[in-house]
């Protein structure tokens, strides 16, 4: 019973630690997957807007504490993303795993766009530096992360010895 409630917090902490210590070694041509976004996606799509908003906020705040460039920047971005993903809640609408992977990909684009927008609000001189980054960095990162999420869905559909799907 305790593990049922602790499952997600443990997963968040584990992902955060892996993101900062292990994931850099998985980088391909400087592109790294974003485990935190993947976990936020799985959580929000399962539990809806309310849960997504709060988890997104605290996850972003944790990132902000780690990267104190602009405190609140990640919190704001992840809150918005948590809410957006929560709209596709599994309890409200049934979506295909393929569609879910596409949603994750789109959410990455939205995430980085909001992130850059916040930076631009602070310094408008960065506009021409940041906009190309959206194509050069965000799309490969989104593809890499969506591929990892797709692997999770593929694993769900593999035949299990116990008979459960």
């Amino acid at each position: 019973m305790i593990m049922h409630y602790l499952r997600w917090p443990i997963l968040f902490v584990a992902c955060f630690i892996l993101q900062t210590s292990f994931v850099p070694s998985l980088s391909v041509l400087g592109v790294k997957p974003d485990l935190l976004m993947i976990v936020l996606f799985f959580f929000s799509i399962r539990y809806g807007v309310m849960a997504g908003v709060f988890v997104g906020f605290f996850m972003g705040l944790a990132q902000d504490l780690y990267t104190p460039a602009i405190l609140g920047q990640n919190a704001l971005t992840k809150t918005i993303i948590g809410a957006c993903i929560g709209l596709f809640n599994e309890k409200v609408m049934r979506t295909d795993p393929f569609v879910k992977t596409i949603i994750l990909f789109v959410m990455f684009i939205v995430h980085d766009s909001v992130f850059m927008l916040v930076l631009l609000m602070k310094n408008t001189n960065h506009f021409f530096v940041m906009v190309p980054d959206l194509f050069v960095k965000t799309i490969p990162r989104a593809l890499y992360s969506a591929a990892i999420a797709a692997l999770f869905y593929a694993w769900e559909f593999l035949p299990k010895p116990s008979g459960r799907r």
Partner: protein
Amino acid sequence: MHWIIRFFTIYRNITSFCALVFVSLWMMSSTPVKQEKIARILSFSIFYPFQFYISQTARIKNIFSENRKLKEDNAAQAAAIAMLKEQAQEGARLEGLLSLRGNYTYDLQVARVVAREPSSVSRSVIISVGKENGVAAYMPVITSLGAVGKVVLALPHMALVQLLNDPSNRTSVLAQRSREVGILETENGEEFFIRYRTHADVAPGDTIVTSGLGGVYLKGLTVGAVTRVVTSRDPLFKKVFVVMSVDFNRLEDVFVIRVKSQWTSFRSELDSLERRQ
């Protein structure tokens, strides 16, 4: 009162979303100094101890092969050290002859990078040495390729290093050939440039080293090389783009130069004034 509770119950999704967005915006609008202090204290006490131990566990896997390789390297380097010692003695002799006074004996402390920022571009790293090893704030951090950054916070067994690719970092540098001094800047952590006066003698291929004027970095640490010079619309300045000698995404082992900052007393004075405000 009743209708407020009812409103929050019905529109709980929207109200919680708006509240958290408001809190985020409020945090973003507070002063950078305050933001940084709170964030660093909290993150050091929450995240880094976990990362340190996980990073150490992951390294055990490679320790045997690394040990064998180090023994081989050790044998090869023993011969090289003997030769370098000879050259150092010769250098000291020549230095004495020329009556030059230079501080070339760096007190280096080897350190391992144990954690990085979770963002796509690392702007700071955590290293495995701290106050117990004689490391203190504002000590320069280097690799064999050149300057890496500076220690901004030292704990007993760990230290936070602000890398040169942090956009908030400004480093005083000079062109090795022409001795033109400038400030190294970056906007995105990947493209580095120096604003020089239009008539400054800087050309592609020139080596850029630290000037030693900032009070943190010692003079002459390699920073990078000039790739291109762009004359902007500004008639007074031109932009000199620099490719860094160090790849900040592949940092593993670094050295902390245990040297007291020239401006330590000045900085502590500034910090105390800041605290009073």
